[in-house]
């Protein structure tokens, strides 16, 4: 160990040591000379004698130096210098190899970083895999929440958990005396929720049992975002009384920035403060329940225990719990929505691997193209006595220089692309557990794969250093390797594989791009994306009943009318893409079979100008008027999808339906409602296929939260300010929040789905570009190899068009091979993962698009080499021989 250290120190100050040695030897020579002079020799012959006696001074120095550094190490340094010089001369090749390697590593790493964050890393909580999520389902509803009464039963009855906690996400208003309130995502949590999760506040304390019962001193915990934006990050916030939803609460703690449980929450209140829990009805299911498994208890044990508890309820409370089953999954799986068998997930992984393969094949191809060029040089080296090992070492060092630089570029590209990707996500929608942090092992593995392909294929030229080959290579001049078919065949194979893989990815890309367009028939696209939207929530603490809320909305509409002038506006319980209320449907005259569950529809409460504001005219019938808001009007508007599903496309105007709340098991059905209009199918949720939606008049609902839609006209900032003023005039404690254009709303809702599509598109395009780079490299190389042949052909009278055709023919062969490979691959892929797309792969539109893209790509990739071939001057080419 000490010896190694001394060696390293020597290397470190190599020059200094070398000078020391030189000076020392010079001193030695001088002393010797002096001694010889003393013995009586004349100075000249003494000097000669001294030198003779000492031998070669340079040799001595060399020997002494070799004690410290093995000579091979010095030679490697020489190789590195040589390699860099060589690459500096072949700038185009070096740049291509380094960029392909760098982007290959970087983009793939970004892909896997995002994939890892979304599907694998899981919650950033201690022993997150021991956290389970408990919900229920019955024959009608999947994924149903748990009621407060049920939660209390579970907490006292279940033995599998060290703690069971519940939460209910809800937006909350934070206000202070004399300051405009703000609206934040929030959650009501049971006292031990944070303890069960293992989250500690950054400041102050968490909730304790005494905070969480009716009549307790009101307490609240703030997120670091609110703390900074509203209170300037002042620690004096602890103990201060603020207004939450209009009533006072004392801040007892502040959470760290990455603790937005359950997703992007910024404010937390004890569960007992959630007004909807009173009175505790068994079938008022609004809570999400999770628990931490006791040591030694498996998830199966917990499932079995839950089964027996739910079975007990089924017997004991048949009217509210009959057929209710527990659904127990790990909180990680629930949040990530993942499953090992999930085909989308597998397809994604496979996609990433394909992209990686393409990059590796590309790098290999570039190295091969170069290898063929170097055959002659290697042969000359070998004939001058370079051993095979020496040649291999030099090639390895050169490859390592490329690989090293490429890896550095790769890390840079990953950092930049992850950052770029991050900027495409709308603010405030990123859940706390999503963290696009790079994963060192993944980056390492990617880099290792790419670098290995550089090193392996960088060694190919060494094959020509074998002794029996040299003569042949030299005799054949620069074209020596033409006779060696191996690498060329490999290059053709690699290019074909690359093209094939990128065809597979292109088929995905093309279908992904074409898919939304083919949906237009069933899904009305909201074209007026600059519609301004905003939300306002009336806290239950100050607006206790529907009547009070109704009065507020009436005054609000009057004021809005003044503000909007001639522009249309509407209020709605939910914006497009933002969900709705699930209800059970009965259609008059359509008897349900015994035991058949009532179908689900989604309801949205709207005011009179809703569709006009969205610039989506009704297909049939009329919009609501203020008369429909009267409690005895009983009118509804349904969407196109609804008509297709329940009236088989017949005219539904005048038909009657009945709605029943879905969350309550034995709720009374509504009166019969008459259909007065048919709206286009505006999606309320994210799946591609729109749901059946029933629009009901807004006024009788008098919901706690209303969304405002306003046709644009004036400057948005002015409009927003005016809107805030109007609301403040009505009630100074009400915040207006989520002031967004319709485009922003859709972007926010769909970003998660778009992440996938964006990633896949990006990767597919890069893979395609890589394949073209590969094609270019191979074609350019072929032209360079055959320049003499082409020269002779042209000297003998070949036409330019003939030469061009020759170049393209070869490229086309590879593309055709690749296309065949890719088409076969796509069929296999679709059979394995399911295409998930409406247009079939074999549809003419898709095939034509792919063919067009490939053709354009091939022309682009081959244009430069073909031009070079055509413009070759036979005289110059032949003279260089």
């Amino acid at each position, binding site marked *: 160990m*000490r*010896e190694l250290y*001394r*060696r390293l120190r*020597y290397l470190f100050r190599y020059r200094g040591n070398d000078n*020391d*040695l030189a*000076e*020392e*030897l010079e*001193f*030695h020579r*001088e*002393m*010797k000379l*002096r001694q010889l002079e003393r013995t009586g020799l004349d100075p000249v012959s003494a000097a000669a004698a001294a030198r003779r*006696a*000492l*031998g*070669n*001074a340079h*040799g*001595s*120095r060399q*020997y*002494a*130096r*070799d*004690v*410290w550094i*093995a*000579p091979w190490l010095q030679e490697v340094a020489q190789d590195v210098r040589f390699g860099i010089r060589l690459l500096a001369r072949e700038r185009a090749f070096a740049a291509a190899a380094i960029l392909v390697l760098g982007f290959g590593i970087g983009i793939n790493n970004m892909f896997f970083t995002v994939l890892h964050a979304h599907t694998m890393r899981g919650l950033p909580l201690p022993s997150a895999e021991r956290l389970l999520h408990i919900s229920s389902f019955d024959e009608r509803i999947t994924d149903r929440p748990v009621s407060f009464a049920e939660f209390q039963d579970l907490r006292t009855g279940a033995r599998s958990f060290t703690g069971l906690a519940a939460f209910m996400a809800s937006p909350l208003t934070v206000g202070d005396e004399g300051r405009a309130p703000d609206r934040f995502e929030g959650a009501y949590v049971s006292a031990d929720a944070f303890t069960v999760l293992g989250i500690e506040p950054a400041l102050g304390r968490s909730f304790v049992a005494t905070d969480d019962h009716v009549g307790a001193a009101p307490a609240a915990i703030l997120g670091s975002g609110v703390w900074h934006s509203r209170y300037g990050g002042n620690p004096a916030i602890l103990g201060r009384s603020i207004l939450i939803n209009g009533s006072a609460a004392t801040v007892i703690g502040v959470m760290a920035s990455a603790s937005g449980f359950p997703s992007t929450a910024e404010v937390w209140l004890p569960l007992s403060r959630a007004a909807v829990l009173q009175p505790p009805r068994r079938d008022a299911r609004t809570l999400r329940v999770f628990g931490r498994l006791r040591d030694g208890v498996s998830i199966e044990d917990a499932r079995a225990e839950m089964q027996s508890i739910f079975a007990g309820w089924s017997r004991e409370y048949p009217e509210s719990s009959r057929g209710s089953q527990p659904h127990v999954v790990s909180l990680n799986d629930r949040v990530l929505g993942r499953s090992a068998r999930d085909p989308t997930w597998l397809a994604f992984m496979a996609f990433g691997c394909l992209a990686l393969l393409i990059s590796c094949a590309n790098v290999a191809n570039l190295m091969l193209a170069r290898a063929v060029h170097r055959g002659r040089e290697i042969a000359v080296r070998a004939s001058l006595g370079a051993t095979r090992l020496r040649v291999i070492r030099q090639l390895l060092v050169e490859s390592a220089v490329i690989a090293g630089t490429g890896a550095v570029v790769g890390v840079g590209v990953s950092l930049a692309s992850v950052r770029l990707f991050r900027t495409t996500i709308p603010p405030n929608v990123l859940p706390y557990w999503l963290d696009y942090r790079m994963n060192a092992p993944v980056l390492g593995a990617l880099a290792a794969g790419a670098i290995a392909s550089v090193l392996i294929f960088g060694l190919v030229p060494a094959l020509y250093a074998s002794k029996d080959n040299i003569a042949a290579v030299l005799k054949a001049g620069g074209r020596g390797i033409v006779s060696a078919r191996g690498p060329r065949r490999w290059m053709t194979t690699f290019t074909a594989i690359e093209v094939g893989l990128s065809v597979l990815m292109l088929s995905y890309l093309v279908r992904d791009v074409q898919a939304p367009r083919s949906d237009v028939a069933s899904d009305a696209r909201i074209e007026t994306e600059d519609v301004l939207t905003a939300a306002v929530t009336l806290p239950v603490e100050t607006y206790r009943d529907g009547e009070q809320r109704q009065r507020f909305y009436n005054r609000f509409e009057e004021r809005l009318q003044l503000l909007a002038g001639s522009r249309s506006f509407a209020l709605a319980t939910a914006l497009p893409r933002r969900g709705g209320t699930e209800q059970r449907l009965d259609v008059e005259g359509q008897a349900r079979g015994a035991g058949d569950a009532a179908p689900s529809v989604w309801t949205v409460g709207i005011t009179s100008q809703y569709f006009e504001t969205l610039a989506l005219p009704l297909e049939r019938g009329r919009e609501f008027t203020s008369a429909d808001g009267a409690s005895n009007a009983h009118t509804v508007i349904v969407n196109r999808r609804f008509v297709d599903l329940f009236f088989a496309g017949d005219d539904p105007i005048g038909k009657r339906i009945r709605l029943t709340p879905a969350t309550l098991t034995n709720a009374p059905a509504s009166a019969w409602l008459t259909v007065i209009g048919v709206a286009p199918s505006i999606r309320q949720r994210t799946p591609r296929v729109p749901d059946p939606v029933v629009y009901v008049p807004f006024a009788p609902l008098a919901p706690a939260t209303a969304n405002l839609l306003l046709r644009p006209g004036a400057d948005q900032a002015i409009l927003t300010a005016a809107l805030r003023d109007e609301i403040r005039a009505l009630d100074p404690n009400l915040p207006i929040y989520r002031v967004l254009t319709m485009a922003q709303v859709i972007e926010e809702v769909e970003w998660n789905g778009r992440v996938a599509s964006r990633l896949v598109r990006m990767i597919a395009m890069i893979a395609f570009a890589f394949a073209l780079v590969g094609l270019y490299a191979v074609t350019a190389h072929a032209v360079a190899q055959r320049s003499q042949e082409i020269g002779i052909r042209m000297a003998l009278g070949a036409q330019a068009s003939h030469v061009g055709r020759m170049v393209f023919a070869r490229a086309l062969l590879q593309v055709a091979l690749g296309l065949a490979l890719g088409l076969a691959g796509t069929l296999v892929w679709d059979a394995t993962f399911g295409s998930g797309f409406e247009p079939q792969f074999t549809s003419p539109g898709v095939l034509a698009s792919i063919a067009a893209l490939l053709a354009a790509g091939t022309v682009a990739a081959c244009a430069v080499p073909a031009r070079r071939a055509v413009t070759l001057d036979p005289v110059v080419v032949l003279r260089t021989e």
Partner: protein
Amino acid sequence: MGEPTPPDLLPGTLELLILKSLTAGPQHGYGIAQHLLTVSDEVLQVGESSLYPALQRLLLKGWVRAEWGVSENNRRARYYSLTAAGRKQLTSERREFDRLIVAIQKVLDTT
């Protein structure tokens, strides 16, 4: 790795001799060579091509240390001196060498 051993000496002997000559005190390379020459009645002529690599090896092992000093004729010279490890090495190697000599003698005396 091309380490030339002095033709007239057993491997490792030169190092032993250098260590021994340094017991008298710090000495520069030329001084060590002169010392070996005079003490051995001009038998051991150590060339610099073997002396300096040997000194470098000793430095590497940590048995000697080198410092720049001023020679008797007022020139800058590099003085080598024994380290504690070097002293220990000398005694153990001396013992080893004696054993070797006795063994060689025995072989040569037996016919």
